[in-house]
C-alpha cells in the first residue's frame, strides 16, 4: 500500500488538541509534512513532541482535531510502509538479534528469507554481524539501538518517524545513523525527526516546526525560521572589549569570539566601523544566518538548553 496522493501532504495535522485530565498538553496544533521531505520536529522536553507522534500513530486518542497519514487516520492493519523508532527504545531482550529482526520483518510484510537476508546485510553494515545469534540483552545500549533502527527501516518505509534517533549514540555512531537516515531520504522516504541535534537538522531537514508548551512557535523551511528569528548574524573574532551599541545586540560572547545580531537599519560596514572606532582589534568579520541552536536558545532559554544537553 502507498501512502496517499503525492499532491496532498503526506501528514496532515489540523487543530490537534490533547488534554491529560485537566492539563492541556497540545493546543490546537496544525502543520503538514509533504511527501519526500525531511521534517524536523523540535522542542524542549515536555513540549508535546512525542505526544503528537503517538496521537498521529493512533497510540493516543486525541482530544480534538484531525491527524492523518496519507489522507486518513493511521491504522496498522492498512499495511502502510511505515517505520517508527519510538523514544522509548526496546525489543524482545531475551531473544536472538536475528530472530527479532526477522520477526519484525515478517510483521512488516517481508518474506522470511527476505527478512533474514536484509537483516544479515544490515548487521554487517553496522558492525554487528557477529552478534546475529546473541541475545539482545547481551548487547550494549548503542548496539541494541542499531538493531532497533534496522527493525524500523527494513520495510523500506515511505514514512519514517524517528523520535530522538541519536539518543545514546557516540559521535561515530551518530554519524553512521545520520548517513542511514540520509540514504532513506535519498531513496524517497518522508522523514519526520525529533532531535536536539540542531546541526543535523540544518544539514538534513527541509522544514521544521518548533513546539513550545504545546503550540507551534515557528514553522517553515529552515531559512524561513532563521529569517523569522533574526535573519543574519555577524560572527566576529576580536581582541579588546565589545562596546554596547545601538547597531547590534550581542547574541553570544565568549571573550574573543562573538555573534552580533544587527538591529534594523544596521549594515555590515556600519557595525565594523563602530567596532574599529571603539578600539576593538577585529581579526575576522563574517555574515551568517542565525543558527537553529541560537533560535532554540532564544525560544526556550538558556536553562532549558542546558537541560536538553
Amino acid at each position, binding site marked *: 500500500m502507498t501512502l496517499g496522493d503525492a499532491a496532498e501532504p503526506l501528514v496532515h495535522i489540523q487543530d490537534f488538541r490533547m488534554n491529560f485530565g485537566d492539563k492541556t*498538553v497540545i493546543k490546537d496544533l496544525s502543520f503538514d509534512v509533504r511527501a519526500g521531505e525531511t521534517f524536523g520536529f523540535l522542542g524542549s522536553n515536555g513540549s508535546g513532541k512525542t505526544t503528537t507522534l503517538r496521537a498521529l500513530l493512533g497510540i*493516543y486518542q486525541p482530544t480534538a482535531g484531525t491527524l492523518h497519514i496519507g489522507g486518513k487516520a493511521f491504522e496498522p492493519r492498512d499495511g502502510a510502509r*511505515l517505520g517508527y523508532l519510538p523514544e522509548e527504545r526496546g525489543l524482545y531482550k531475551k531473544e536472538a538479534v536475528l530472530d527479532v529482526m526477522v520477526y519484525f520483518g515478517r510483521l512488516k510484510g517481508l518474506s522470511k528469507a527476505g527478512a533474514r537476508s536484509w537483516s544479515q546485510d544490515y548487521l554487517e553494515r553496522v558492525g554487528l554481524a557477529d552478534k546475529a545469534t546473541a541475545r539482545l540483552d547481551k548487547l550494549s545500549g548503542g548496539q541494541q539501538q542499531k538493531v532497533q533502527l534496522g527493525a524500523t527501516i527494513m520495510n523500506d518505509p515511505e514514512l519514517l518517524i524517528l523520535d530522538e534517533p541519536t539518543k545514546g549514540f557516540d559521535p561515530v555512531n551518530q554519524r553512521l545513523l545520520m548517513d542511514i537516515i540520509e540514504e532513506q531520504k535519498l531513496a524517497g522516504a518522508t522523514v519526520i525527526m525529533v532531535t536536539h541535534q540542531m546541526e543535523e537538522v540544518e544539514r538534513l531537514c527541509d522544514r521544521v516546526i518548533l513546539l513550545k508548551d504545546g503550540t507551534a512557535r515557528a514553522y517553515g523551511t529552515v531559512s524561513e525560521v532563521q529569517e523569522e528569528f533574526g535573519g543574519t548574524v555577524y560572527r566576529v573574532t576580536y581582541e579588546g572589549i565589545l562596546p554596547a551599541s545601538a547597531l547590534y545586540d550581542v547574541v553570544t560572547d565568549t571573550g574573543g569570539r562573538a555573534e552580533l545580531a544587527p538591529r534594523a537599519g544596521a549594515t555590515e560596514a556600519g557595525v565594523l566601523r563602530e567596532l574599529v572606532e571603539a578600539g576593538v582589534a577585529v581579526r575576522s568579520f563574517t555574515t551568517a544566518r542565525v543558527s537553529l541552536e541560537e533560535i532554540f536558545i532564544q525560544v526556550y532559554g538558556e536553562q532549558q538548553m542546558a537541560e536538553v544537553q
Partner: protein
Amino acid sequence: MAFSQHNLGTVIAFEFMRTIKKKGFVVATLAIPVVLVVVFALIFASNSSTEASADAQKNSAIAFTYTDASGVIPPQMAQAAGGKSASDPDAALAAVKDGSSEAYFAYPAEPASQPVKVYGADKGVFENGKYEAVAKQVLNAAAQAQVGNPQLTAALSGGVDFESETYRDGKVSGGFGSVIPPMLFLILFYVAMILLSNQMLNSTLEEKENRVTEMILTTLNPTTPITGKIISLFAVGLVQMLVFLAPVAAGYLFFRDSLALPDMDLSILVFEPGPILVGALLLLGGFTLFTGVLVAIGAIMPTAKEAGTIFGPLMAAMFIPFYAYSLIISDPKSLIVQVFTYFPLTAPVTAMLRNGFGTLTGVEAGIVIAELFIVGILILRLAVHLFRYGSIEYGKKLSIVGTFRRSELAAK
C-alpha cells in the same frame, strides 16, 4: 485481511517458538516425565523385591506360642500353622522378650469385641507384619471351620462384591461411571491453568517491561498480538501435556504388569452427551474468562513481581470451591453453593463439579455458560483496550478508568 492473518500466524509462530526454546521451559517440561520415569523405575525395582519378599514370607513358617481364652481355635489347626499352646501367658510373653520364642498370640475371650494381642521378636517393619498375618489366618481358618460354609465365611469377612443399578426417566443411569467423563473437563481446566496461567500473566507484561509496545502497536492491530499469544499459549500447553502424558501412556501400554498399574476397566465409563457438552462449554468459557483476566492484569501491572500480588488470590479463587466440596455435592441449593455457581471466578470449577455429579440443571448450565463467555469476552476486549492504551505506561501501574479518560497518560 490476508495481511492480518499473515501477521497472526507470524505472532503465533514467534511466541510459540520462543517459549519452547527457553531453557526454563525445556527443563520444567522435561523434568516431570523424567521424574515419572524415575518413579516408574523405582516402582519396578520395588515390585521385584516385594514379590521376592512375599514369596519368602509365604514359604517361611514361624514358630509361635498361643493362649486361647475364647476356645475357638482348634489345637490341631494352630499346630499345623506352627503354633504351640502355652499355659502361662506371662511366661510366653517373657520368652518372646528374651528371644527364646519367636512369637506369642493371645486370643481373648471375646475376639469380636476384644483385640487379639500379638507379640513377636522384632525383624523390621516389613517382616514384623507376618506375625499379625499368621494370627489372623489362624483365626479365619478357625471361624471357617466353625461355620462350615465358605460362602458365609466370605460374607462375614466382607469379601463379597456388589453391583448397583439406578434408573432415571426409565433408563439406567450411569452411576459413578457417568461422573468421571464430565469431571475430566475439570481436570483439564486445572492442568491448563496451572501450566499456562503464569505465561498468560506475563504475555503482555513482557511487551511493557521490554518497552516494545510502541513498535508493536504501530505494526499490528492490538487484537492480533493478544490473540496470537493466547493461541500460542494453548499450543504450548498441548505440547506440555503430551510430553507429560507420553511416559504415562508408554508405561501403561507396554509395562503395565511390571509397574503394577491397575488394569482400568473403561467399560464402566458412561458418556452422556448432555453433561459432556456442558463440561466442554464450561471448560472453554472458564478458560476464556481466566485468560482475559490474566492478560488484563498483565496490561495493568508494571512488572511481573507486582502482578504476582494479584495473581495469587486470583488462582486461589479457582480452589476455593473445593473447601465447600461436600456441600456442593450434597446441597447444591444452599446459598454458598449458589454464590459459587454464579460468581465468575468460582463459577467454572463449581459448575463443573455440579455438572459431574448431576446437580447442575439445564437452566443453570445455560446461565453459567453464557455468563462465562460474555464476561470472558468482555474482559478480553478490556485486555486489548488496556494493552493498546495502557501498556505504554512503562514502569507505572495503570488506572483502568484512566485509559478511558486518558487522564493518567504521561505527557512528553
